[in-house]
C-alpha cells in the first residue's frame, strides 16, 4: 500500500493552509468592495472590476510578505535550530524553502495578471466617464470639484483623455508598468534552463527585486482609489438617484478621500528580516578566515581546511564561500566535510567550473612546493547553514545515498556518528546506517576512502561494525584486465579489491526496488530516514519508492529527504 502521509501530507497541509488564506483574503476584500457603501460611486463609475483589482491587490500584499522569507538563509537556519523539539515533519518543510518561494512567485504572477487586467478596465471606464456628455451620474461624478482636499473620485481630469497617456501621468501607472516589467524579467530568467545553464544571468537579473519592492511600496502612494467619507450626511439609498439636485441641504455633494497605502505595512517586517539576514551574512563574511591546509586529492578534487573564530557546525551543514580576488559577487555553497569535533573545518571542492578552477589556481593546488599560509588567498565564509542531513540522528535507521561528489554531505555525518559512538555514555537512537555510494570511476574513491577505512577500523575496535554498512556501486571505469584482477583478488581477500574495505564493491547500478524491499523487511516498524544527494531523475525514483514502501499498518516509514542547493 502506498503511504502518502509520511512524505506528502505535511507539505500539502502547508500548501493548503496558504491557499486557504489567499482565498479568504481575496474573498473578503472582494466582498468588501462589492457591498461597501463608501465605494458605491466608485463602483458606478468602473463596475465590478474594482472588486477584482482590490481583491488581487490584497493577495499581492500577503504574498509579497511571504516571498522574501523562504530565501532568508539565516532565518531558516535559526528556525531549524530552535525548532529541535517541534515535530520533525514540520521541520522537514524547511528543506523545501525554494519550492515554496516558487509557489508564492506563481501566485504573485497570477494576482498581478488579475490586478492589471482589472485596472485596464478601471482606467478605460474612468476615461470613458469623462467623455460622457449626457445626463448620466458618471458625468456628474467625473466633474466633482477638484480642490476641496482631494474630494474627487475620477482621477482622470482631462475632458478628452487618451488612457495610454493618462496612465503615465499617475504614479500608480508608472510604478505598475515598471514593476510588472521587473517581474516579467525575473520570471523569464528563472526558468529551469537559464538557472541550470547560466546561473549568473539568473542571479543578476533576480536582483531587480530591489526595484520591484520599492515600486511595490510606492505604487499606492498617490491614493487614487477614493472612498466616500460623508456617508452620514449623504446616504447612498436616498441621495444616489437625486444626483441632479446635489449640493442642497438634503443631499450635500459627496466627499471622497483616498485610502492610505498599506503595502509597506505588509512588506516592512519581512524586508527588515531580509535586510538583517543579508547584513548578518555580510558581517560574518568579514570575519577572518585562515586557510590552514590545502590537500590535493584524486580526480580533480581538492580539500581546503580552514579556521575561523566562533565557528560551530553540525553534521551535514554547508557554508558559502566567496573569494574576493575571483569575484566579489559570487558566493558558492560547499558542504562541510569535517566533523563538529575537529578543530578545523574543511570542504572538498571539485574543479569543474571557472570559479573552482580559479580557486584551485590561487591555492596552488597544482604546484608541489610548500606555501606559507599567509600567502593563501583571502576568502570569506558565511554560514554554516543547515540542511536535511542534520536530522540523521533522529531516525532509527538512516539510509544515505550519494552519487559521485554528492557523497560529501555524508562525510561529516559519518564522522560525527563515529565520534558520538565512541563516547560510551551517549545513547543514540540511531541503530543502523546504510551508505549507498553510486560512483562513476575508481579514482573518485580515493579521497573518501581514507575516512571510510578509519571508520571501519574504529567500528570494529568498538565492536559496533554492524552499525555501519557501506554499499559502493561502481558504474564505470574499469577495463577488462582490471575486471579480472578485481575478481581474483576478491575471492582471496576478505577486503575489497578496489576500496580496501570489508564490504565488497558492487559493479553496475543498484536495483533500488530490491534495496528498499530488503530494508523494509529488515527494519519492520522502524522509522527510516532516507537522505539523498544527487541528480534529479534518481531523486524522483527514490521519492516514489519511499512512498511505496512506507507502510502505515506496520509503522515502517521511509522519510525522504533531499539535499538541494
Amino acid at each position, binding site marked *: 500500500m502506498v503511504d502518502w502521509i509520511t512524505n506528502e501530507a505535511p507539505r500539502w497541509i502547508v500548501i493548503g493552509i496558504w491557499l486557504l488564506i489567499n482565498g479568504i483574503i481575496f474573498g473578503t476584500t472582494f466582498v468588501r468592495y462589492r457591498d461597501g457603501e463608501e465605494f458605491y460611486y466608485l463602483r458606478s463609475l468602473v463596475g465590478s472590476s474594482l472588486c477584482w483589482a482590490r481583491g488581487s491587490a490584497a493577495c499581492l500584499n500577503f504574498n509579497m510578505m511571504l516571498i522574501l522569507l523562504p530565501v532568508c538563509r539565516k532565518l531558516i537556519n535559526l528556525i531549524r535550530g530552535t525548532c529541535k523539539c517541534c515535530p520533525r515533519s514540520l521541520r522537514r518543510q524547511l528543506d523545501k524553502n525554494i519550492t515554496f518561494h516558487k509557489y508564492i512567485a506563481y501566485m504573485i504572477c497570477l494576482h498581478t495578471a488579475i490586478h492589471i*487586467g482589472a485596472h*485596464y478596465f478601471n482606467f478605460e471606464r474612468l476615461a470613458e466617464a469623462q467623455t460622457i456628455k449626457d445626463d448620466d451620474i458618471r458625468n456628474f461624478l467625473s466633474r466633482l470639484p477638484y480642490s476641496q482636499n482631494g474630494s474627487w473620485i475620477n482621477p482622470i481630469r482631462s475632458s478628452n483623455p487618451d488612457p495610454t497617456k493618462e496612465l503615465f501621468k499617475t504614479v500608480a501607472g508608472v510604478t505598475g508598468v515598471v514593476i510588472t516589467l521587473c517581474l*516579467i524579467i525575473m520570471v*523569464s*530568467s528563472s526558468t529551469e*534552463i537559464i538557472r541550470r545553464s547560466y546561473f549568473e*544571468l539568473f542571479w543578476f537579473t533576480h536582483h531587480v527585486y530591489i526595484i520591484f519592492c520599492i515600486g511595490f511600496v510606492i505604487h499606492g502612494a498617490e491614493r487614487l482609489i477614493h472612498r466616500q467619507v460623508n456617508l452620514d450626511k449623504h446616504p447612498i439609498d436616498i441621495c444616489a438617484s437625486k444626483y441632479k439636485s446635489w449640493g442642497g441641504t438634503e443631499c450635500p455633494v459627496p466627499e471622497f478621500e483616498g485610502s492610505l497605502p498599506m503595502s509597506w505595512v505588509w512588506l516592512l517586517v519581512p524586508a527588515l528580516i531580509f535586510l538583517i539576514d543579508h547584513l548578518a551574512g555580510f558581517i560574518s563574511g568579514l570575519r577572518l578566515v585562515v586557510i590552514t591546509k590545502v590537500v590535493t586529492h584524486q580526480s580533480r578534487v581538492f580539500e581546503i581546511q580552514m579556521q575561523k573564530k566562533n565557528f560551530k557546525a553540525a553534521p551535514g551543514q554547508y557554508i558559502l564561500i566567496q573569494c574576493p580576488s575571483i569575484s566579489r559577487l559570487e558566493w558558492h555553497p560547499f558542504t562541510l566535510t569535517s566533523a563538529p569535533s575537529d578543530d578545523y573545518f574543511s570542504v572538498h571542492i571539485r574543479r569543474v567550473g571557472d*570559479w573552482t578552477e580559479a580557486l584551485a589556481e590561487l591555492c596552488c593546488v597544482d604546484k608541489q612546493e610548500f606555501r606559507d599560509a599567509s600567502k593563501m588567498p583571502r576568502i570569506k565564509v558565511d554560514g554554516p547553514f543547515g540542511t536535511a542531513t542534520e536530522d540523521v540522528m533522529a531516525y532509527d535507521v538512516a539510509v544515505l545515498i550519494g552519487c559521485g561528489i554528492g557523497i560529501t554531505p555524508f562525510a561529516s555525518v559519518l564522522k560525527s556518528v563515529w565520534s558520538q559512538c565512541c563516547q560510551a555514555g551517549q545513547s543514540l537512537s540511531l541503530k543502523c546506517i546504510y551508505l549507498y555510494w553510486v560512483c562513476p570511476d575508481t579514482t573518485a574513491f580515493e579521497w573518501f576512502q581514507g575516512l571510510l577505512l578509519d571508520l571501519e577500523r574504529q567500528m570494529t575496535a568498538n565492536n559496533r561494525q554492524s552499525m555501519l554498512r557501506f554499499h559502493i556501486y561502481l558504474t564505470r571505469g574499469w577495463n577488462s584486465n*582490471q575486471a579480472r584482477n578485481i575478481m581474483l583478488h576478491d575471492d582471496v581477500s576478505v577486503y575489497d579489491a578496489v576500496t580496501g574495505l570489508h564490504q565488497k564493491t558492487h559493479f553496475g547500478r543498484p536495483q533500488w526496488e530490491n534495496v528498499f524491499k530488503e530494508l523494509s523487511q529488515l527494519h519492520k516498524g522502524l522509522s527510516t530516514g532516507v537522505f539523498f544527494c544527487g541528480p534529479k531523475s534518481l531523486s524522483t525514483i527514490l521519492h516514489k519508492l519511499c512512498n511505496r514502501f512506507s507502510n502505515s499498518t506496520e509503522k515502517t516509514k521511509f522519510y525522504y529527504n533531499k539535499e538541494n542547493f
Partner: protein
Amino acid sequence: MGKIEWAMWANEQAIVSCFVTILCGVLAVSGQFNLWGIGVYAILKGIVTFLIEYPRGKRQKGTSYPRRFQHLLSILISKGRLLTRNYFVRFVFYLCVSVPCCFMLPTILGALCYMITSLIYLVAAIKGEQWQPIEVDKEETGPKVIEQPRRPPPRRPDVSQRGPQEINSNQV
C-alpha cells in the same frame, strides 16, 4: 560556469512576452475598448511569434534542451535561413511589430515586453550568436538491439570469455 548565451534568455523572454501580449489582446477585445482592433493584432502577433520562438536553438556548449514537439517547427525555422535564424533580424522584427501595440492601454505592456526581448536579441546578435537547429537522433526502426557492454563487469573467471588458467598466468 561558462559563457552566457543571451539568445537562450531572449527566447524565454519572448515566450513570456507572447503570453503577456495574447492576454493583453484578449482583454482589449473582450473589453471592446476604443481601438480594440489593436487587441486582435496583438493576439495574432502573439501567436505568430510564439510559433517562431517555440523551437529552442542549439546551445553552443553542453546539452541542448528541445521543447516538447518542437521538431516540425524547428525544420521550418531552419528553412527560413537568414530571415529566421539571424538574431539581428529578430531584434528589428520585434521592435517593429511592437509599435502598433503602444497606442492602446491594455497592449502597452505587451509592447514593452517585446522591446525588452528585442534588446536581449540585440545583445545576442552583437555577441555573434545564431539560431542553430538541434539535431534529432534518428529513431531506429526494427527490433531494438541492446549493445554489448564495452567494459565487462567483473565476473567470476569461468563466466568471462577466457579460461581461468590464462588469467592466473596473467597475474603471475
